[in-house]
């Protein structure tokens, strides 16, 4: 029996932290199942990545070359298929990166197996794999098993400690033909470092709610002031910016908008569920949909005008009842 850990390299040929976390989980699973661990690497050049995890006591396969530098469904899937067919795994475990989330569900079809994605936990019980994942957008967690094999699993970030064990790795290179792939990657579109406000690795998530664009005590809206306050805070703290759906959607309703907020900032029931050590919510209200966006935030604080806010009560650690405009302006002053 074999557990196959699959990873892809980043643009600098390293392994992402989420891949290292997933390796920890895959190794524990293999140990718990009494199975061999096999590592499969995909990327432009995998030598450096293999060296950083060479101490995991596994056999290594790799598909590498310039055509595997970027994530493409067809080439990634062909590479993963070749690796899987070389070791006939019972279970395939991979990080739920955008690249593998795109490609690996197709692997289950090609291997005549099954796939479960975005796991929040993975363990061996009585020698068999047991997975945990969230349903209905982080609103309830299920623990599941299945008999079909191979079982392709992707693990979300933040669910295990990163693997630490560099060492020499003897990598067997596999050759695959992707000349028939019709997709060409034309590059990345990234905001500049100063303009980028989505920062997955930030220590703090700052969530802006619709209250920032509503009429204030003087009966007028103060959107430019809100924008400036938020921007100064983000510059000072390098926090990641999230938004409620209602704020992002205000443009469609003809309301004034925070110019740098897009649907990509959206957190909650219809947005992302980010993972940060701390979260500060401002001008938000609402129940279940907002809680979803905060599911994986460890320390949570909120500023709003309603001491009885159903979202805050029982959901965050500290609720500051006050005017976010005034409080955040003072916070910015103190941050210097």
């Amino acid at each position: 029996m074999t557990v196959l850990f699959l990873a892809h390299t980043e643009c600098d040929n390293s392994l992402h932290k989420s891949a290292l976390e997933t390796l920890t989980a895959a190794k524990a699973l293999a140990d718990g199942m009494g199975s061999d661990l096999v590592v499969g690497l995909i990327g432009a050049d995998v030598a450096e990545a293999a060296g950083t995890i060479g101490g995991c006591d596994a056999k290594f396969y790799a598909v590498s070359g310039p055509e595997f530098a970027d994530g493409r469904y067809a080439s990634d899937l062909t590479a993963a298929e070749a690796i899987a067919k070389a070791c006939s795994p019972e279970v395939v475990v991979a990080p739920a990166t955008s690249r593998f989330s795109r490609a690996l569900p197709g692997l289950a079809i090609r291997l005549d197996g099954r796939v479960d994605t975005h796991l929040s936990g993975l363990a061996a019980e009585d020698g068999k794999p047991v997975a945990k994942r969230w349903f209905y957008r982080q609103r309830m967690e299920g623990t599941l098993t299945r008999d079909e094999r191979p079982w392709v699993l992707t693990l979300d970030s933040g669910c295990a400690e990163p693997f630490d064990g560099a060492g020499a790795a003897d990598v067997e290179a596999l050759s695959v033909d992707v000349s028939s792939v019709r997709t060409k990657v034309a590059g990345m579109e990234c905001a500049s470092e100063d303009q980028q406000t989505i920062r997955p690795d930030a220590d703090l998530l700052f969530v802006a709610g619709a209250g920032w664009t509503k009429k204030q005590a003087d009966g007028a809206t103060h959107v430019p002031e809100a924008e400036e306050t938020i921007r100064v805070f983000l510059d000072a703290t390098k926090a990641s910016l999230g938004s409620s759906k209602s704020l992002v959607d205000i443009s469609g309703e003809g309301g004034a908008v925070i110019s740098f907020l897009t649907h990509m900032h959206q957190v909650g029931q219809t947005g992302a569920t980010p993972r940060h050590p701390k979260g500060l919510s401002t001008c938000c209200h609402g129940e279940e949909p907002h809680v979803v966006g905060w599911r994986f935030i460890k320390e949570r604080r909120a500023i709003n005008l309603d001491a009885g806010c159903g979202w805050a009560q029982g959901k965050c650690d500290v609720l500051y009842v006050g005017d976010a405009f005034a409080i955040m302006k003072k916070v910015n002053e103190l941050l210097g």
Partner: protein
Amino acid sequence: MGSEFHIVVCGSIVPDPLQTLAPQDGPAGPSLKNEMMLPAVLDPWAGHALFEAANLAAKNPGSQVWLVSLGPKAKLQQVMMSVSQKAPFQLVVADGSASGFTDAYETAKVLAETIEGIGGLDRSKMLLFGGWQSASRGSGAVIQMVGELLGVTEQFQGVDKLTVGGDGSLEVLERVEGGAYQKSVVDGAPAAFGWATGELPEPPNNPQVGMQNMQKNMPALMQAKPADLSGTSLKFSSVELPKQRRETRIVKDVPVDEMAKEIVEWIKG
């Protein structure tokens, strides 16, 4: 110069996101408490896919849009009364569970078989659309499997923009980590796209479009075949709501300066 596409949108219904949801055990595994009583909406990501499909079809004369949906037809009929007013499409229904606990593979198999049965669909012109996530299972896996089962191996996920070139090529922006996009170009159909939010607002209701749609779609609902989703060994040992409740400290009637100072210390701590 436009291209002619046959756009198949996969999308089902989910409970209204504002509803409180609770799981319960049943003979066939977990389900939602009072599931059939909960108000349903078109899955938000499937909605984005449908509106993008309709926009693409309108810009490329000769194109057609099918909405393929696996769900209980009584609930689908309710939801389609409003969705049908948003954009022109031909509804194709597989009558079965839309539960988030339904196996992604079984769902994909039913959808692929249903698509294979669509009369007049030219698979060489096919663009397979759907949501990259759903508000139910949220696996982000179904569209890829439907594509694989149909032999569509050029696929994209987290799509926010699709632009058709003069030569029929398709330029795609896919969301990747860190708020960035990967730009790719595929030389044309067939291809599969799991949509994020796209760039279009929800279209206003158009009763005329609704009337035209429902004339075609009511018979599709009546003729929907029962879907077989029984082939899985997937078993749930538990499904639970998170129990964590925090002891929220309320800070009120405190000067702004003190609140700000405490927040800054917490951020820096």
